[in-house]
């Protein structure tokens, strides 16, 4: 590994792998830093080594990741697996830890391809053992062939809820029910965007196929679910919810929650890149152009980290960002960039055509985003409740950073990844203003834990 590269790519998912391929083709020196032991990102996690039985279960959408990973492996780029980035400086220095070894590298360009994280769903009881994110169950299945052993219920909204439910059913897990919190009003609101979505009708067909798997298995699907609660003293014992005006309680061993995914933008916030609030899906995204350029010189973003568009779009945006890097470093001409990017631009617009529809159909229920029950834990690390946050607001606190110092919300090891969005939603709701007026937590390094010993032995840039 060198200390300087033309392009440092953070993330080895579809966007990062595609960018590496195109950047290497253009002749750039490239370093790819990936958090996992194998390339693939969450969507193609461990696809290189998955057993045939598992590949069959997970289907062609997963298996096609093999092609992309294979092409990535065929490039000449430097690839550091299990590399955790803990700082990125505006001078394009990146600090990371790999197997306990801390070092710095510097790029002439940086591409952030950190993907997405699951939107946290703060319901009463969501911190109990046995309550877990839906994508966590998907990761256990993909990477380890592990499934829930007892009665399992999935609750929330979004394409991944249906996908994981159907995968778990196919794997033989005991899925008792799917509790769909998608508000009925979303169906009407999304309808005007359906014609455009038909340009990418394969997404819609897949959704219908997943629903058929769930129905055929006899799993109950409850719609328009409200007032979701996980109950239990030390461990989750049951889930309570209201569906069509009736309140039900079901025994569970595992409750899986999902409310869509949001950009993993800890690094762009750390760098204080300009962000905008995407009100339809209620998340922040860095302001980028079609090439992924942010407001900071030399810093690009590709894939879901720039706004959720899915794996296929991520791949295409990775290629585009790499061409931009090659152009900015004067390795290819503008004419060459335009020529090479034309087919990618066309594919990107096709892959994204389904999003306005999906984003409105699966718009999160406002009652889930602002926990009404004062006892609901918002900050899982510091155990700060919605009631404590509202109490601080009553005392005159107005912004997330002030609230953080007052209540410790967002001050724990996850650094607001799990509570930051909810915190801004609660403040905006209380003050009756829009979320952009409230803003977001200020993110500071280290964005991942690093010991003093590791820091002191870090290999610096000379």
């Amino acid at each position, binding site marked *: 590994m060198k200390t300087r590269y033309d392009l440092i790519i953070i993330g080895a998912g579809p966007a990062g792998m595609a960018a590496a391929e195109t950047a290497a083709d253009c002749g750039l020196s490239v370093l790819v830093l990936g*958090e996992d*032991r194998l390339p693939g990102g*969450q969507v193609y996690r*461990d696809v290189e*080594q998955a*057993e045939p*039985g*598992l590949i069959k*279960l997970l289907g062609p959408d997963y298996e096609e990741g093999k092609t992309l990973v294979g092409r990535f492996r065929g490039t000449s780029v430097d690839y550091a697996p*299990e590399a*955790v980035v803990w700082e990125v400086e505006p001078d394009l220095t990146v600090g990371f830890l790999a197997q306990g070894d801390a070092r710095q590298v510097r790029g002439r360009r940086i591409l952030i391809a950190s993907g997405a*994280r*699951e939107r*946290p769903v703060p319901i009463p009881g969501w*911190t*109990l*053992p*046995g*309550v*877990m*994110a839906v*994508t*966590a169950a998907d*990761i*256990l*299945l993909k*990477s*380890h*062939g*592990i*499934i*829930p*052993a*007892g009665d399992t219920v999935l609750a929330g909204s979004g394409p991944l809820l249906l996908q994981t439910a159907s995968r778990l059913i196919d*794997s*033989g*897990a005991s899925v008792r029910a799917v509790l769909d919190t998608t508000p009925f009003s979303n169906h009407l609101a999304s309808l005007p965007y359906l014609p455009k979505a038909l340009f990418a009708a394969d997404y819609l067909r897949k959704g219908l196929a997943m629903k058929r798997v769930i129905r055929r298995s006899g799993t109950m699907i409850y719609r328009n679910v409200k007032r979701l609660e996980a109950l239990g003293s*030390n*461990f989750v014992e049951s889930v309570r919810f209201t569906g069509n005006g009736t309140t039900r309680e079901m025994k569970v*061993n*595992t409750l899986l929650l999902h409310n869509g995914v949001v950009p*993993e933008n800890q690094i762009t916030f750390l760098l204080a890149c300009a962000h905008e609030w995407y009100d339809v899906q209620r998340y922040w995204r860095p302001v980028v152009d079609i090439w992924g350029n942010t407001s900071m010189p030399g810093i690009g973003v590709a894939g879901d980290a720039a706004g959720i568009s899915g794996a296929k779009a991520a791949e295409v945006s990775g290629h585009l960002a790499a061409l931009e890097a090659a152009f900015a470093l004067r390795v290819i001409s503008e004419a060459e960039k335009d020529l090479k990017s034309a087919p990618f631009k066309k594919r990107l617009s096709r892959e994204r055509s389904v999003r306005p529809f999906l984003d409105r159909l699966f718009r999160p229920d406002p009652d889930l985003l602002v926990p009404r029950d004062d006892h609901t834990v918002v900050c*899982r*690390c*510091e*155990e700060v409740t919605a009631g404590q946050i509202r109490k601080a607001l009553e005392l005159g606190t107005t912004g997330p950073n002030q609230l953080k110092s007052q209540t410790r919300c967002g001050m*724990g*090891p*996850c650094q607001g*990844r*799990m509570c930051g969005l909810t915190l801004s939603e609660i403040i905006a709701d209380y003050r009756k203003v829009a979320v952009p007026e409230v803003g977001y937590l200020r993110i500071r390094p280290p964005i*991942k*834990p690093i*010991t003093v010993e590791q820091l002191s032995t870090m290999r610096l840039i000379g």
Partner: protein
Amino acid sequence: MFKRRYDVKGPTVTVTIEDKEITVPASETVAAALLAEGFAYTRTTPVSGALRTPYCLMGTCFDCLVEIDGIPNQQACQTRVRDGMRIKIQKGARDIES
């Protein structure tokens, strides 16, 4: 409550979780091994002592913090098991003495 449903390729390693020696697939993360081996919780919180298990498994939530080979606050979902590894459930705040 989780179970290993599909076989995974490759070797196995032996680790110690709490005081129990366990042989698990070498491809597993510490978090996956803890869940598959039926540990009901993997840490207690520093604030109230509440029991927790891993929530996100992708490095975001930090709810899977455990002690590995004497070093506390390690993300179990981001750490691969190694032969001879000693894993301990983290009780409350990490210990800063050493």
